[in-house]
């Protein structure tokens, strides 16, 4: 990483200092020259470095192909002039670099009154970056605007996913899995050092340390995303500023270093501003005392006893990882968990979370939040009034109240009304047609700010496909069907296509065949075995996935119905929703269990290819994995038989 860091120092010589820190943090030793001058010796070094092939430091996703063989190019709303000079010197491969923007693009456009771009992208998240890069790749001149969070957090390039979404949440999920593994470890024969922490893992955990690690990783990725953008040279200009429409063809913004208002003309504009968490202004104390799902990743004190408000996937993922890391977590659910997902799977996720210690409160909303004296550990004390639907009001005290009650597009400041871009007054989502075009013909929108699936890969794909349509002669439309997704709760949930309910609604109950298999956690301790042996119930009702075999993880006491109700419920659920009159073509894939993220991807491809149930039946299972459960689905919902049965080799399914 060191060469890149030095390179960064050079590249950022003329960039606003704050921006440099943002992009290159974690490499502080190398970025001390990020002021307005740049030592000449560095420039020489850079010429060499720029010719060298970039390492393919593909830490997570979309970077490496672009980074490879990159020649460092255009940057970034800094001061004009000198950056261009440095850039030019660095290049070696020709093509003057433009430092700032606006009439100073360093190249031939300086004669024009306003700099003209083929495409201006507003929003430097996943969708915006993808479209910008693709358009640049296709030879277009692109400006990409990205702006700091209104909450004053330290966002950089990368949008929700990188800064406050998938990436940090997956990292926290890893921490959660490790926490749970400590618990399992004791059951598997480890003697661990003295128990100092609370909760599941029984191991002390330094929250601040985790937050630091996660933030460093996010910074590092921002840095490599920045590199990827720079590799497009003059074709792609990044501006760290908030853009707004003056008209459909003119974009204005404040130069981040000079503060002057500047303008540029855009042939086409793509809005990809994403969304920000809703803050419930009508709840007294909420604005002052709550944090959002975004803020948890920068919370520098331990969350302590936490109330999560909301029951979407962000709420459940957050509640899940906090629980597994050791915190006492309650979830206030207004109506149902994971609305829009398959009901059976959603409820199973909630049930498993409850069994590992998350407290769910259903039909409960928050009335008010009042700050009290900090508790004995110095954490804030928040008195929360909880109202249940039947009118009961209780007051509970939490250290942290976290709202995850949806996200709203950040469109207010764009000036959409002035140019006539239509959006939903309630949700603020921008209306688009099937080619992501808004009500203004040269203005397009992708990602979380349109009424489609709010998923990073969807935004990425839609952005790329859009750029190819606009500039690459493609006619391909974004296909929002059969999109796979995974909820990274402690037991993960992966799905592709339709939920059982959606399928029934779309095709009618008679047209649907649902195949099911549930794998139960086993009991091999002597009392449970003896119960099993003397039970009149069929033997094939007590099995486990191999991940938990030998572990026999108990439920938390609060989730037990009686003295015999000791062990975790079935930890796997596999489900295929098929169309009977189309040879049982699979239109819905659902999997609850470990590793759902990894399990689901390949099946998503199979469903896209039109896989039928018989393709699944012909599939040779990979022994012993969780994914192989899909090779043995025989019980249908229609049959009414128990689907809680054999699974994995553990269920006696081998033969």
């Amino acid at each position, binding site marked *: 990483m060191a060469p890149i860091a030095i390179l960064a120092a050079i590249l950022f010589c003329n960039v606003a200092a704050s921006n440099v820190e943002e992009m290159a943090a974690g490499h502080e030793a190398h970025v001390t020259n990020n002021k307005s001058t740049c030592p000449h010796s560095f420039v020489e070094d850079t010429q060499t470095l720029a010719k060298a092939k970039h390492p393919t430091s593909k830490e997570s*996703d979309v970077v490496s192909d672009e980074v490879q063989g990159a020649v460092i190019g255009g940057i970034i709303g800094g001061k004009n002039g000198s950056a261009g000079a440095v850039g030019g010197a660095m290049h070696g491969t020709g093509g003057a670099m433009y430092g700032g923007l606006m009439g100073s693009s360093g190249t031939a456009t300086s004669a024009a009154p306003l700099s003209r771009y083929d495409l201006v992208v507003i929003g430097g998240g996943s969708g915006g970056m993808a479209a910008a890069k693709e358009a640049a790749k296709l030879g277009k001149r692109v400006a990409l605007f990205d702006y700091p969070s209104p909450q004053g957090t330290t966002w950089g390039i990368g949008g929700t996913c990188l800064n406050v979404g998938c990436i940090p949440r997956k990292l926290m999920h*890893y921490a959660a899995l*490790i926490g749970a593994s400590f618990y399992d470890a004791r059951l598997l024969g480890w*003697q661990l*050092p003295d128990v100092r922490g609370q909760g599941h893992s029984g191991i*002390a955990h330094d929250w601040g340390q985790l937050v630091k690690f996660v933030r460093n990783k996010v910074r590092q990725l921002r840095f490599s995303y920045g590199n990827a953008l720079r590799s497009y040279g003059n074709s792609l200009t990044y501006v760290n500023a908030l853009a707004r429409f003056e008209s459909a063809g003119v974009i204005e913004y404040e130069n981040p270093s000079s503060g002057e208002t500047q303008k540029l003309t855009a042939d086409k504009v793509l809005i990809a501003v994403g969304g920000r968490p809703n803050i419930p202004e009508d709840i007294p104390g909420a604005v002052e005392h709550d944090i959002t799902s975004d803020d948890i990743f920068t919370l520098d004190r331990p969350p302590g006893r936490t109330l999560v408000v909301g029951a979407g996937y962000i709420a459940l993922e957050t509640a899940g990882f906090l629980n597994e890391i050791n915190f006492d977590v309650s979830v206030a659910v207004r109506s149902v968990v994971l609305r829009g997902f398959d009901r059976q799977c959603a409820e199973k996720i909630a049930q498993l979370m409850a069994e590992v210690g998350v407290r769910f409160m259903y039909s409960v909303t928050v009335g008010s939040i009042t700050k009290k004296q900090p508790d004995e550990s110095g954490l804030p004390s928040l008195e929360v009034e909880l109202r249940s639907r039947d009118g009961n009001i209780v007051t509970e005290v939490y250290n942290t109240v976290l709202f995850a009650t949806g996200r709203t597009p950040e469109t207010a400041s764009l000036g959409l009304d002035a140019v006539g871009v239509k959006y939903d007054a309630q949700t603020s989502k921008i209306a688009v047609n099937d080619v992501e075009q808004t009500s203004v013909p040269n203005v397009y929108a992708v990602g979380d700010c349109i009424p489609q699936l709010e998923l*990073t890969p969807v935004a990425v794909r839609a952005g790329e496909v859009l750029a190819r349509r606009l500039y690459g002669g493609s006619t391909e439309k974004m296909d929002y069907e059969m999109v796979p997704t995974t909820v990274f709760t402690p037991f993960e949930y992966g799905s592709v296509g339709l939920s059982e309910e959606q399928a029934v609604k779309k095709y009618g109950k008679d047209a649907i065949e649902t195949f099911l298999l549930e794998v139960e956690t086993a009991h091999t301790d002597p009392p449970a075995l003896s119960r099993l042996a003397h039970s009149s119930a069929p033997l094939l009702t007590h099995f486990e996935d191999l991940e938990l*075999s030998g572990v026999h993880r108990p439920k938390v006491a609060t989730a037990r119905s009686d003295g015999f109700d000791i062990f975790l419920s079935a930890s796997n659920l596999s489900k295929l929703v098929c169309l009977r009159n189309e040879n049982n073509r699979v239109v819905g894939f659902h999997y609850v269990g470990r*590793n759902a993220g990894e399990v689901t991807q390949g099946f998503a491809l199979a469903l896209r290819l039109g896989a039928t149930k018989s393709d699944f039946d012909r599939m040779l299972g990979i022994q012993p994995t969780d994914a192989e459960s899909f090779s043995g689905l025989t019980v249908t919902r229609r049959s009414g038989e128990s689907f809680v049965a054999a699974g994995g080799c553990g269920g006696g399914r081998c033969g």
Partner: protein
Amino acid sequence: MYVTHRLARFGTHLGPLQNHTRSLSSSPLRMSEHFDFFVIGGGSGGIAAARRAAGYGAKVGVAEYSRWGGTCVNVGCVPKKVMFNTAMISEMMHEAHHFGYDIDTSRVKFDWKTIKHKRDAYVKKLNTIYDTNLEKSAITKYIGKASFTGPKSLRIERATDAGGPLEVTASHVLVATGGYPQPFGLPGEEYTISSDGFFELEDQPKKVAVIGAGYIAVELAGIFNALGSETHLFTRGDTALRRFDDMLKTVLTAEMKRAGMHLHPGSTPAGLKKEADGSLTLSLQNGQSHGGFDTVLVATGRMPCVDSLNLPAAGVKQAPKKGYIEADEYQNTNVEGIYALGDVCGKVELTPMAIAAGRRLADRLFGGMNDAKVSYDLVPTVIFSHPTIGTIGPTEEECKKKYGEDNIKVYKATFPNLYYGPWTVAPEEKPKTAMKLVCLLPEEKIIALHVIGMGADEMLQGFGIALKMGATKADFDSCVAIHPTASEEFVTMAPWGMAPQRRGA
């Protein structure tokens, strides 16, 4: 599992049958009972065939010498996966500090006995389940060695207290006796254990030598190493997993080294000696010797369980090498009415393969599906190494050889899993994931898929279906990613979206 008598010589066995046997052999006995279908071997393939046939209404008998479930359940996949998961937990504990956990791993103690006994209890329970499954399918069970007395007749050696020996006849006989670990065959053999013996170990070895280069050697060495045994892997060639794709071998070698395993390539054993202090010294043909081992595990291959079958009495043809039974794609041997499948044929020695072959055979013989057979192409396989490996189809080299280098296009990606993202170590210190798609031009049909890295084990299955369905690179590109996962790299491999399109995106 039909191997106890062989294994006993090598210091391992599957345990006495004891009263378990008696209770299982409760079926009414008649001399020379006739069956529609008789299966020798109660492992994955045999049980699958037997139950499927019984489902079609055939009268079915099955003979098993040892414990129900065969290699997979007793000394294979299942207990191996339990140990693999245990090893993964050990790894996670040692990595926990990267995620803010404050744990002094030097004070962590692992008790091998605990997991051994829990694992045994679990396997025992599975034996019972298999037994119950057979009973539910109304299959007549025999505990005893079966051997041919003619093409349609068998003698079953039962213990006296189980009713003594008897003869049965059958219209169709399936041999699914599986295999057993190939012995060391060198001086000092008595001091070695096999993969079967691995599951008998009551205590964790302090310093262990694993001899072999196949997936069993790699998996067991990985478990030992992750659980803290000083582990030495001796391979005859340059690397382990000789027949696998180069990318997999290269990354695995690097990762095993990173994990602290001691690799000894180019090591052909000459013999094993027990020292006065009880430790074992391994001498190699190159003159080197390595000492101080308390356990030496030999995993240099497997042999078919054929010796006690008296195959000549039925005239069943065997391969010259090792004596594998020769069977065609329909599992027919050279003798009409006698079939063979699974490890005893030595073709694709995988549990699901044997199960599928068994079911297809029953479909063909009793289900009226005259052409039912199993496909041996594009079989997805996972190796539970550290990190795990997933592979479908031939190696890149084999593909190029078969189709010509100009007709093959290869996509590759190498990256550290996001899991290693927050680690404050140099990038080169982070374990790597490597992926490869081998495509056949011009339409870029995927003919092989290889992956090594965290999560490879669970990501493979779905791609297995897709490859069977003839997926192309454009199809892969058309699939939206799941973010953030490792498997999403397969559908976003650069250059993305440039392959010839057959279907919409």
